[in-house]
């Protein structure tokens, strides 16, 4: 629940509660005050009647009955009563005072009534006022409060949005808004400092990786050169040649991993910034030609519609590396007599290949050094490079497999 909704709901429920009690209380208070007023009036009327005290005189609103004797000692009673109007159309509320008096040896009950209808209107108006004004008041208060909170929170939401899209790899700064609310200002200061620290650490880490990889190149070059020298000797036994070749191969592998890491570091450092119009159709055709021997070797069937065009603005050398790695992947993880299906559309490239049924977790697919053990030739870094290139070039890549079919989908924006 949003903070705004939460505080709003709290406010509304509290308002309704207090408003309900407030107006009920108000109503009864007015009622009480009006009754009190009528009682006074009736008492006043009683005094008048007693002052005049002429049984011959009758009043329209005074009724005199003879009642049994035992009522004599009863105290005067105030009560509400309903009387049908003269024409019988409707009932009216009356306030009544009954008191008893002795006259000519009989006990008489004198009832004085006063119509409540004019005051009823008053009470109604008051009650209405008590209802409508608070409602209006609460609504206005709620709206003003909401707007003001929303305004104050805008900085907070801005911060959250910027943090959400924060990518340590991206070059842009966090650039949080300034706020006149101290708490938010403090929060943003903390985030700004944190961002700076994270970026600095990340830069240092990248630099470290880059430098290490670079420094490794020369020693690897020396090892490789010496081994090459060694293997040229004429008097080596088969076993010795194999041992040296194994070392050479391992060194080469080391060098390739190292180069891949340097390449990744370069990707992270945005070395490949210059973009141009790249035709994926052309690149795929070129790469397929390059890989023809391998495709023939596995007797793979390649389905590729050479008519469809897909032109994207991106770095050409990255596009080549991307396609090459994806196609290599499709070829090497294929099965004999399998297929590779390459489908190009306006903004999509799908590469589907047959392969073995795998339980490889889809999410792990693009991680570094994730590989299947049965492919000793794989360095386990190709797809992570593919992923990185996609990230940089604004391409969405997804992988899925169903049974023995594996599919990579690249969506271009």
């Amino acid at each position, binding site marked *: 629940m949003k903070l705004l909704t939460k505080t709003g709901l709290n406010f509304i429920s509290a308002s309704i509660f207090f408003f309900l009690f407030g107006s009920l209380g108000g109503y009864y208070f007015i009622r009480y005050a009006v009754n009190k007023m009528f009682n006074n009036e009736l008492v006043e009327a009683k005094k008048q009647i007693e002052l005049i005290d002429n049984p011959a005189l009758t009043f329209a609103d005074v009724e005199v009955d003879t009642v049994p004797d035992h009522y004599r000692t009863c105290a005067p009673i105030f009560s509400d009563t309903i009387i049908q109007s003269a024409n019988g159309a409707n009932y009216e509320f009356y306030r009544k005072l009954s008191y008893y008096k002795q006259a000519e040896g009989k006990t008489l009950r004198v009832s004085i009534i006063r119509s409540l209808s004019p005051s009823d209107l008053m009470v109604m108006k008051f009650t209405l006022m008590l209802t409508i004004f608070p409602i209006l008041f609460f609504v206005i208060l709620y709206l003003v409060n909401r707007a003001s909170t929303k305004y104050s929170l805008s900085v907070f939401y801005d911060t959250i949005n910027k943090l959400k899209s924060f990518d340590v790899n991206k070059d842009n700064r966090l650039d949080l808004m300034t706020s006149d609310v101290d708490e938010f200002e403090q929060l943003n200061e903390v985030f700004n400092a944190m961002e700076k620290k994270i970026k600095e650490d990340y830069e240092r880490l990248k630099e470290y990786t880059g430098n290490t990889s*670079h420094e490794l*190149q*020369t020693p*690897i*070059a*020396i*090892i*490789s*050169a*010496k081994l*090459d*020298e060694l*293997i*040229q000797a004429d008097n080596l036994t*088969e076993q010795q*040649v*194999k041992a040296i*070749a*194994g070392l*050479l*191969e391992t*060194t*080469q*592998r080391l*060098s*390739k991993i190292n*180069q*891949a890491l*340097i*390449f990744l570091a*370069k990707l992270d450092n945005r*070395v490949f910034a210059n973009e141009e119009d790249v035709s994926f159709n052309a690149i795929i055709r070129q790469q397929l030609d*390059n*890989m023809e*021997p*391998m495709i*023939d*070797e596995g007797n793979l069937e390649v389905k590729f519609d050479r008519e469809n065009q897909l032109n994207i603005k991106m770095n050409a*050398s990255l596009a*080549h*590396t991307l396609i*090459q*790695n994806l196609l*290599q*992947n499709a070829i*090497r993880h294929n099965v004999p007599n399998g297929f590779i299906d390459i489908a190009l559309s306006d903004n999509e490239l799908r590469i589907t290949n047959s392969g073995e049924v795998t339980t490889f977790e889809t999410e792990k697919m693009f991680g570094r050094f994730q590989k299947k053990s049965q492919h000793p*030739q*794989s*360095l386990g*870094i*190709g*797809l992570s*490079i593919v992923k990185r290139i996609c990230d940089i070039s604004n391409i969405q890549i997804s992988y899925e497999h169903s049974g023995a079919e594996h599919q990579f989908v690249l969506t271009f924006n």
Partner: protein
Amino acid sequence: MKILVVEDEPQLAQSINDFLVSEGHVCEIASNLSLALHLVDSLFDIIVLDLNLPDGNGLEVVKKVKSRGMTTGVIIVSARDSIEHKVEGLELGADDYLTKPFQMAELNARLKSLVRRVHFKGEENITFNELEITPSELLVKVNGVTVDLTKKEFDLLIYFIANKNRVLTKTGIGEHMSKDFMDYGFTDDFIYTHIKNLRKKLIKAGCGDYIRNVYGVGYKFTDAN
């Protein structure tokens, strides 16, 4: 051929030197920039140049060679492998750019190609027994009959002949073949197919079977038994 090796790493310099001498070249080593700039004056055919030198940037050597109008060919050998560095080096007038670590066979192939370009203007034909290759026209003839090879196969053949009688490992050949765009996902096991096809085509054209398998670890191009 008189070659100057500018390399500050003594082990690597020695290896390059030994290799070049074994190939029949005359070699001198300069381990820093000032020595290299000094030695450049005594005309070399080719300079193998490292860029990261303790007392400066190796590109100074390229500048000096080119400003003097010497015909010396320059191959840069550097651990820096960004396009920018390559372009910078080549624009200054270097003839080739090799990224460390490299295989001696690769350096050898580049050297030979450079010698052909610089000293023979690319006109020189390569011959090996009944094989005759015209690099400028991508033409291969066996006993005077043209053999139809793909670009990769042609490249492979040139590489083999440049490094004849040497053991070439599969990985080294793979590296040579995939120099345009790195395939980072796998090591190079695909060259086997290329070599098989090249061998088939040459034998079919009546050429001797010069590509020998060395214990399954590599290949050797030789006519020796």
